């Protein structure tokens, strides 16, 4: 069973990389650009047939290692 995880910085955490990317795009003429926040993306293939169990396992992976809950939020999607 495959899942994707998107990790983003929380709203009130400064994202200097996103800011630089944003400024560069504005310099390239993308004047309607409002803002950019940069994040991380994972694809996970898990050996589990029961979807709710699998979802629980992936959630545990996020909490244990993939996400720093102090500064990051995450979203899990079934692929």
């Amino acid at each position: 069973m495959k899942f994707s995880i998107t990790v983003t910085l929380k709203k009130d955490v400064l994202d200097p990389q996103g800011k630089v990317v944003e400024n560069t795009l504005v310099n390239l003429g993308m004047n309607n650009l409002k803002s950019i926040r940069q994040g991380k993306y994972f694809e996970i293939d898990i050996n589990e047939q029961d979807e709710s169990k699998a979802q629980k396992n992936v959630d545990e992976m996020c909490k244990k290692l993939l996400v720093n809950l102090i500064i990051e939020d995450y979203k899990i999607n079934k692929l």
Partner: protein
Amino acid sequence: MKSSVIVFPGSNCDRDIAVALEKMKFKNQMVWHKETILPKSDLIVIPGGFSYGDYLRSGAIAGKSLIIEEVIKAAKAGCLILGICNGFQILTETGLLKGTLLRNKNLKFINKDVHVKVINNKTSFSNKYKKDQILNFNIAHNEGNFFTNTEHLNELNNEDLIAFKYCNDQGAINEESNPNGSLENIAGIYNLKKNILGMMPHPERMIDQLISNTDGVNLFSSLLK
């Protein structure tokens, strides 16, 4: 006084800290991260470097290594733990210290000597310093921008858990003297029991006049019983 320095793939300040500890008469041992038994130690040091190439987040992978379980047990039993630079990042990833270290505000790797002020001089790590003493320490990091939630920030202030703050040569703590964007210019913090210190500056680089200065010596002499 017995010390152990934990070594990860990518640690690069492990030998510097070993030299500093031996110079200060600690009986030091190096401990590889795959070990599962920690030698009896009064002090455990997690050194600076780029453990696991900073993959995922600085310190994230090292923070889940085998020996870290033993370090956490020792910390809970009251053993003194010092995390310098990447060591500080690792300590936050293990949960032994709260908060985290974000990318420097200016997005640059910063390697320079900065001034820090001793905020709490009553701990096992700082009792040989004077309160508000201004020290000259080297910093060398890409992720040193200390960040935490309001609740923890209040706890740090109310419980006197801030070890050092970045300042200028006159001791002024302001935006100009903040090299990396850290909240309230924080350069180092303690846990509630004050047996764990995490700091971004490198005291082990400041132990000999010949190569820098001796501002780091008192941190190690404070630890000696």
